[in-house]
């Protein structure tokens, strides 16, 4: 992929900028792992020995400093991780389980046509800290002799006949599991003092076969467009389902084989207050001749009064009320499908004490079809077409050597419970982290000290600056004509958060520390006209009842061309075209934000 190449050379330029002479191409060759989500990363699956070290450059595209974890497959059993300053940091090795390995080998063969030659034994997990729009560098080496090497996780498998409750989590959030039921039972946050009984389960809906429909009804199958369930079936963990608990200094995990085609890992990061659930669903069995749509349900005792909230394209949250429509007297004929809404960022529900939020890693459908419950549809495999033109059943398969099996879907969702009114901060800031995961670039180092010849940290913005917590930089792009296109987005709605639903300020000059802003022109959203021009032409429509009852909406003020501070009101996005000039005066600390000069 061309962009992958671009990323690699750009990072090479940046790491070499300290010694960069301004001529020729950088020599550092970075590799990336775009199939890391299926546990495949040839760049990190290297044997580290005799001074051979793995350099991991971790890039953060968010406008604020970020503490996060990196997770990569490794071969060595004893490794040690050093940070940008050369300090050994805590890391943890977790076993790479057979389910993930099997999925990895099968899908690598299907996508790339070859079976991976190596078999990593472990996931290496460590905590990283990365500056805004910048990178930090981590060095992984074989732990020779003594020293603070990676902690191997403790692993214990509970059989379902054992009656006990186990608690996992090294940080503020602890989750309890019943080994007897093989499921999660309780969530507690010792900092916010929130406690809630939470149970998670999987179910499937049978896809409806419309040949049962009698006139005047038009036959309607469940298909690629239409969701039409025919009965719900709870997937109960099988008799001998076990529960494996993996503990360590950075993360705790609970592995569960729910049935022969659903596997999941529930993960708690020591420094985080949310729960991460990683699932593998599929191949969905259809040997009974029936298509199925697989959902997971999170159940609580919360009294949510038919109400829940879902995002609009990852931005504003819209209030949803079960079996109700604001604009007309709704006649319910599909109590499940008719209450489904699109989810891009998340879904949440509230009662008078708490707020339960679930965030997703892709778009999917979801609902709250019973009070206190959130449901996400994770996968669907159907055998009939739903008569909307595509004329094909949604029956995805993956093939290796002409043998095809139903698609397996690997994904994650995240949930967290907060005191009422406190959920937005996590939904907005962690939502940004999901959308913009850390970008990893790998290089191998033989002998020489990387630090001496490369920058190990970098921030594209002024080193003393970071974007306010309620603002994201959603575009930073150099156009063909050399102008820079930027967009700043306020992440909160009016009234969404007591601290962050306020006017925010961004100092444009701080975003371009090495350059001088010649001119910043505010544009419309698609950057094809100046904003003043757009506002001048705007039609003002007459509304029934005049303008009474409608809010005018708050906006940030005009940008002073000398100060270049952009004000952003809640939910406002502002777009600018910027002319940059090279700073003509010599800066004493030319690379002051590249630490290794």
């Amino acid at each position, binding site marked *: *992929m*061309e*962009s992958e190449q671009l990323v690699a*050379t*750009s990072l090479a*330029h*940046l790491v070499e900028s300290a010694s960069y002479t301004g001529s020729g191409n950088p020599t550092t060759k970075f590799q990336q792992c775009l199939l890391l*989500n299926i546990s495949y990363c040839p760049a990190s699956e290297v044997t580290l020995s005799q001074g051979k070290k793995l350099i991991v450059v971790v*890039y953060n595209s968010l406008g604020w400093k970020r503490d996060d974890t990196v997770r990569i497959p490794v071969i060595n059993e004893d490794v040690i991780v050093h940070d940008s300053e050369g300090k050994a940091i805590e890391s943890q090795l977790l076993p790479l389980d057979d389910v993930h390995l099997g999925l990895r080998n099968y899908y690598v063969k299907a996508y790339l046509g070859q079976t991976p030659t190596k078999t990593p034994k472990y996931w290496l997990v460590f905590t990283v800290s990365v500056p805004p729009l910048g990178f930090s560098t981590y060095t992984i080496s074989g732990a020779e002799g003594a020293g603070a090497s990676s902690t191997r996780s403790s692993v214990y498998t509970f059989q379902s006949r054992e009656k006990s409750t186990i608690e996992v989590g090294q940080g503020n959030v602890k989750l309890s599991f019943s080994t007897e039921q093989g499921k999660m039972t309780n969530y507690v946050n010792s900092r916010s003092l929130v406690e809630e009984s939470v149970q998670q389960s999987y179910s499937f809906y049978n896809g409806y076969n419309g040949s049962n429909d009698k006139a005047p*009804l038009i036959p309607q199958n469940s298909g*690629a*467009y*239409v969701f039409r369930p025919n009965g719900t079936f709870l997937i109960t963990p099988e008799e001998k389902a076990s529960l494996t608990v993996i503990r360590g200094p950075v993360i705790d995990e609970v592995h569960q084989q729910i049935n022969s085609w659903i596997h999941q890992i529930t993960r708690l990061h020591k420094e985080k207050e949310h729960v991460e659930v990683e699932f593998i669903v599929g191949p969905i069995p259809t040997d009974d001749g029936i298509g199925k749509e697989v959902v997971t349900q999170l159940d609580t005792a919360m009294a949510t009064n038919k109400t829940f909230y879902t995002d609009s*394209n*990852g*931005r*504003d949250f819209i209030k949803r009320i079960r079996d109700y*429509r604001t*604009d*007309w007297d709704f006649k319910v004929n599909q109590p499940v*499908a*008719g209450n489904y809404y*699109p*989810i*891009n960022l998340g879904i949440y529900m509230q009662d008078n004490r708490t707020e339960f939020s679930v965030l997703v*890693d*892709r*778009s*999917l459908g979801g609902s709250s079809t019973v009070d206190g419950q959130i449901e996400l549809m994770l996968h*669907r495999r159907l055998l009939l077409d739903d008569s*909307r*033109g*595509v004329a094909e059943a*949604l029956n*995805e398969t993956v093939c290796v050597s002409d043998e095809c099996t139903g698609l397996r*879907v690997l994904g994650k969702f995240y949930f967290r419970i907060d005191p009422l009114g406190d959920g937005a901060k996590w939904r907005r800031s962690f939502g940004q982290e999901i*959308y*913009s995961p850390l970008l990893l670039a790998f290089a191998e180092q033989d002998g020489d000290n990387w630090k001496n010849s490369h920058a190990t940290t970098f921030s594209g913005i002024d080193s003393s600056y970071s974007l306010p917590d309620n603002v994201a930089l*959603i*575009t930073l*792009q*150099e156009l*063909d004509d*050399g102008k820079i296109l930027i967009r700043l987005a306020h992440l909160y709605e009016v009234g969404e958060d007591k601290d962050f639903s306020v006017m925010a300020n961004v100092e444009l000059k701080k975003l371009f520390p090495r350059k001088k802003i010649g001119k910043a022109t505010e544009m*419309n*959203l*698609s950057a*094809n006209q100046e904003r003043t021009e*757009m506002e001048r032409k705007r039609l003002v*429509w007459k509304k*029934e009842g005049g*303008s009474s009852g409608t*809010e*005018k*909406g708050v*906006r940030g003020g005009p940008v002073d061309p000398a100060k270049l501070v952009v004000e952003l009101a*809640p*939910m*406002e*996005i502002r777009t600018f075209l910027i002319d940059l000039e090279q700073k003509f005066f010599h800066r004493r600390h030319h690379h002051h934000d590249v630490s290794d000069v």
Partner: protein
Amino acid sequence: MATTTPRLLFFFFCVLISVADSKFMVYNTSQGIVAGKLNVHLVPHTHDDVGWLKTVDQYYVGSNNSIQGACVQNVLDSLIPALLADKNRKFIYVEIAFFQRWWRDQSDAVQRIVTDLVSSGQLEFINGGMCMHDEAATHYVDMIDQTTLGHRFIKREFDVTPRIGWQIDPFGHSAVQAYLLGAQVGFDSLYFGRIDYQDREKRKNDKSLEFVWQGSKSLGSSAEIFSGAFPENYEPPSGFYFEVNDKSPIVQDDITLFDYNVQERVNDFVAAAVSQANITRTNHIMWTMGTDFKYQYAHTWFRQMDKLIHYVNKDGRVNALYSTPSIYTDAKYATNESWPIKTGDFFPYADRINAYWTGYFTSRPALKHYVRTMSGYYLAARQLEFFKGRSTSGPNTDSLADALAIAQHHDAVTGTEKQHVANDYAKDCQ
């Protein structure tokens, strides 16, 4: 018939003679808006899916026609002479991924002609993103990026800015589309085809298919947009389809022929117009004259619309005109009518009982994940591209931008395309 009498042969001979005798007929298509009459705005359009049953490439060149007879090159190639034949004819073009490709294939001479058609307003870019993006399974950053890509192409090549949102096929409509990708883009209105069947019934009764949409609680009326949901769909009223093989009766105005039907067709036209006027505020209604991949031989449509405009206006009960959504919007605005306010969105969408289009929110979850992953990657890659200094020749982010843009199409990230097309989108992103 078993035998043919000599008399009948003679009759055929006379007909041939009379055709040869007939002279060039001038249809008056110059009619504009007429105050005090019901104005029927004929909006000629084609809906060109950027991938669905066929891949984007197959739709463009017209291959794999056994699946669907569709060729975008035919549409645009035949459109230009059809517009040149009569300066009153108008057309809107929507999907810039196709247009851009066609544009790059044209000679300087054709490009000059097209530029003139755009500046005269005969050819108008509507919506103007690379595709008509989905509104349920799309992330707002992707919607902005793909719209920007199309809009900046149009601005660069033609120095115009699209005025109208035209989301006629997506399966439900989002608040973000209205207030962000509508009002904040600078659109004067937003039109679409699919809303819940129960909602549509109510809106027909209340004459509230057109309204002012305030999609954002936070930005309120500062981000509102005039919006219209079509009474049925984005196609013409039944009986007014004029693609080469369509079944609708053409306007047969040669009086010497047995199937002369001008009065009949005018009556059909007036009846359909009046029925739509009964559910619409003001004396302006819009007819969406076209549908999926139509105008492959553009003359067939324009020939009939020329005649309809000519004879309907001669009849005088209603006023028919060549129009665009911009002209229609300006006409609505000029009436000074008051419009109902809509908040929230149009999800979920059902087109009839038991048919909720909520499956596609999840369909093809692996493709959806891939698109989301590439979206975040593209954002980061552009930052790095800027830090290094952009190169137009070396590796850059342009191909990812194009691939991601078409993946936002309402039969792409939605998961409602055929399997071979889904494979093609994923391949393009690599």
